[in-house]
């Protein structure tokens, strides 16, 4: 043990502001806050639906308030950031053997983006038709 050991100073709460890479990591991590809040908002919608028409109509009116719209716009951005980050690392979790090597990373990522787009499109079409 040296008499004067080197202690690296890392600010506990602001370390990720020093570097773009850290900041992107943190942005990816905080997507969970918006996704979690949205899941709670949706769950409360089910509660209001179970309570009857008056409670449901108040919930729907609340969803059209400016603060709700701004929250959902921001949450949409974070949810897309989460989805892109999640799909971009799928090749690390899926190594599919093909011939002498593996299915290329780009193919695996591309298929995920394709399914994402397809699912989104189908839900939007169903919403418009129903």
């Amino acid at each position, binding site marked *: 043990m040296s008499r004067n050991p080197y202690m690296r100073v890392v600010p506990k709460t602001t370390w990720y502001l020093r570097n773009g890479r850290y900041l992107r990591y943190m942005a990816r991590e905080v997507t969970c*806050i918006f996704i979690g809040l949205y899941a709670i908002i949706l769950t409360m919608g089910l509660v209001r639906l179970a309570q009857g028409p008056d409670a449901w109509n108040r919930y729907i009116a609340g969803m059209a308030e400016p603060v709700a*719209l701004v929250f959902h*716009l921001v949450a949409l951005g974070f949810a897309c950031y989460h*989805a892109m980050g999640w799909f971009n690392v799928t090749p690390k979790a899926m190594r599919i053997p093909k011939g002498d090597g593996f299915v290329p990373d780009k193919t695996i990522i591309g298929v995920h983006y394709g399914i994402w787009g397809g699912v989104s499109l189908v839900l939007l079409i169903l919403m418009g038709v129903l």
Partner: protein
Amino acid sequence: MAKSNKPIVWGLFAAGGTVSAFVIPVMILITGLLVPLGVFGSEAMSYDRMTAFAGNWLVKVILFGVLTLTLWHAAHRLRVTAHDFGLRNDGPIAIAVYGLAGLFTAVALFALLSI
């Protein structure tokens, strides 16, 4: 080998991350922006229509699955993120975030069963 609950915790996190990546963006777009802005008309999410929709048992199962996995995913990632924000008492944080996810899972279950 020592027993660990890590595979279950991480398996649910991964499942929730995948499900939420595929469907949460478009769900936010629909329920949070397009419907409130009236893009699908004022009756798009009317009480009658929504009770008919959420009254279907298959829809109930899908909604419950999406909600509980998404809540678990968010809770687990928030637990790890709390550490990155300088909150180092993992025990109470784990109880708080998993507790919240469990609470709203139960709320979603009871609400769906009474629609």
